[in-house]
């Protein structure tokens, strides 16, 4: 039983990322989309937080959003396309989008 959380807002202006981490349990996944991928900006505070997450909380980011923002996926994040996004939602029991 696990949840895939979807984030879309910048961690620098919005609480959704911080609140999401409070709900993230073992086995839960996190998919960064839109401005939420700014959390992967190297040397940033959110980057440090995400890189320290336990390995049983897999991290994903939408490849097109990384590309648009000129951010490279670090080794602890798997960049995915839309076909993989669809299949990813089926690997979890439920999907929770932070609006």
């Amino acid at each position, binding site marked *: 039983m696990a949840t895939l959380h*979807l*984030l*879309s*807002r*910048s961690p620098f202006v919005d609480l*959704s990322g911080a609140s999401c981490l409070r709900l993230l349990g073992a086995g839960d996944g996190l998919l960064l*989309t*839109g*401005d*939420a991928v700014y959390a992967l900006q190297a040397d940033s505070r959110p980057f440090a937080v995400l890189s320290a997450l336990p390995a049983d909380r897999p991290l994903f980011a*939408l490849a097109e959003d990384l590309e648009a923002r000129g951010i490279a996926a670090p080794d602890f994040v798997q960049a995915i*396309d*839309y*076909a993989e*996004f*669809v*299949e990813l*939602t*089926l690997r979890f029991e*439920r*999907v929770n*989008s*932070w*609006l």
Partner: protein
Amino acid sequence: MKFALALFAPPHAPSSRRALRFAEAALAGGHEIVRVFFYQDSVQLASSLTVSAQDELDLPAAWRTFVQEHRLDGVVCIAAALRRGVLNGEEAQRYGRAGHNLDAPWELSGLGQLHEAAQEADRLICFGGD
């Protein structure tokens, strides 16, 4: 597998485009979309009065074409739509408004349609935010 999709953000929000790309990928992957439900500000995607600049993505048109081509069930929450000035002919007449901006393939209905789709589908995927 069966997907129910729900949208919450206005047409210009990146998440509304992301939802369309997800929907396309789901169908391309051999999955079924039991319903696309438009709630809160996303109801504006169903307005036929949006005018996009020629060199910009016309997301309301893209969603309309997608729903039509694949004969999907595109349901717009009636309460959220009325509140935001999105009306079909029947509602425009009911409330004495000068015109309407919602036509086929869109259908106005209640929140029960969101629940019904979520119950029927294997996954409910919501799109909102930025």
